[in-house]
């Protein structure tokens, strides 16, 4: 089976992955903006941002 046909048959997975990636990014941006407005500071971007400065 060639790659094109394989991807065609698996398109529902590709579509779902794309929706998750796009919708997830949008929701994260919205929620982080809302949090910033509430608290007045930027939310942590990653786990390392949460660590004390001495451990970074």
């Amino acid at each position: 089976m060639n790659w094109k046909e394989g991807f065609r048959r698996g398109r529902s997975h590709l579509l779902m992955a794309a929706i998750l990636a796009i919708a997830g990014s949008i929701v994260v941006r919205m929620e982080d903006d809302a949090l910033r407005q509430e608290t007045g500071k930027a939310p942590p971007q990653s786990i390392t941002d949460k660590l004390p400065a001495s451990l970074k």
Partner: protein
Amino acid sequence: MDFYFNRFEDRRPPEPLPHSRLIELIWQTLALMMLLLGARYLLWRWTDSLNWDALWFAIPLVIAETCAYFGLILFTLNLWKVKDYPLRAPPARTSECVGSAGSEDDRPISVDIFIATYNEDEELVRLSIRDAKAVRYPHPIDVKVHILDDGRRDTMRAVAEEEGVNYISRDNNVGFKAGNLRNAMEQTSGDFIVICDADTRPFPTMLERTLGYFRDPDVAFVQTPHWFYDLPEGERLKDWMGRKFGGVGSAVGGAVERIFGEIRIGEDPFVNDPQLFFDVIQRRRNAYNAAFCCGAGSIHRREAVMFVALRAYADAIAHATGDAKSRIAKLVRRRADPAAQALARWQAAQAEELTPYKFHVSEDIYTTIVLHQDRERRWKSVLHPHVESKMLSPQDLLSWSIQRFKYAGGSLDIFFHDNPVTAKGLSLGQRLMYLTTFWSYMGALWNLVFLLAPIVYLMTSVAPVSAYTGDFFDRALPFLIVTELAIMFGTWGISGYKGKVSYMASFPISLQALWAVVRKQKIKFPVTPKDRQDGHYLHLVWPQLALMIGTFAAFCWAATALWLGFGNYTLGGLIANGLWGLNNILGMSIMVRAALWRPTEEEAG
């Protein structure tokens, strides 16, 4: 005779999925990533994400996620690799199939083809008889076709006589199909037995491509994939849209198909296509010697079937002796007398019957478990990847529901009352594969939580996680996206969406079966109708309809509340749960559409 499926006679089955080492490596790499990311996500869920203000909601959801993740581990093990048994030349004589120890009785192989029937149309069975008679073999062997008629019909006997095949019946229906097969075994003597249902129509190649496996004297049975040749093919999107909306619709439909590939409306409305089950799930259990028998389309070594019978007989006698021993011990308060035990064994031997197939709704799985359990003989089960027969699919939601309920109830009944996962004799791989089957039916419990979770948030603004912020998506999204990609490569060549949503949407049947088994109700044996039943079946899908309506109503409520500014709703939470709810609605809608499905005039013939 004019059957609806006459027009599908020319259809040919798909070839087995080709095995590609590259695709398998990609799948295995992605699968490992998926499990690692899943473990990371779940660890965070349990330790750092729970909404402590709403544990009533957070705890059930995280437990459901954990159960689903465990199922994902089992599914990954199941799909890990393809390891087909090598096809071998068809044997001619018994000495080629029994190993060195039992080659004294050397003669041409004999095969009995059993066609079990109860109330199916005699002309439908005639088609199966004719195809069974047309089975070819490269050597002169003895092949006999037998009609096993539990309906005791003179008309069926007449058809058997007209076709020149043997007619077998009995004066009762004890044990239903298993009893029917036992009765036929007592009256026949072939070295191998082919089990067919009334609508199973073997291809001419069935024996020449499967008997070669029995050159290995440890092979007990070979299961061939089921293939439903009557599945509705549906209509191309561009044609469907053209019919509904004219030239513009056709152009839009054509454009969508150019981007996403061919899309068919109304194709396989009941998601009956068993290719995922046979060509992926069962086939990859060959690696663990854990493929199980599914009844129709299977070829059995008579010696193995009789082995199962003797084992069950011996177990029943031993059990009876144990019972007697405990009764006697209670009465006399001392060690049971050996003579009393011998008497109990003798009495049990008189009372018990030799039963090749256990009288159970899932007699085929039971038979496989008993074979796999034997540590001395080490029987093997083979899933042959090529389709060797054609069958009819359930043609309406009632027939479909009966069939699924039997599968679910039978499997769960074994899990709760004769659990092979903890029984002696099985290898670790076999235990895990049986657990995979049972866990998939238990999945209805956590699927229900996943279906209700967005409704709870949308109605109450209570989130199961502390917040829908980057922390959550950092962990959830990589896991979910890699899972989609991994499953795509793990089932490469098969469209997985319908299978996934059908599994999700059939939760009421599995829950019903689970409830029946927990209450120790007997799973009944209704024969799956082979012809189309009239009517619509919305009453069968009320749970799915209720969930669809509930999710939509909850979304409208949450959107209004967010707009008016009451509750703790956030736009991000609304979008995330709205999309989750939309995914659930689309999944449920498959079953609702199936309940309303009617064949087109062309499909109805």
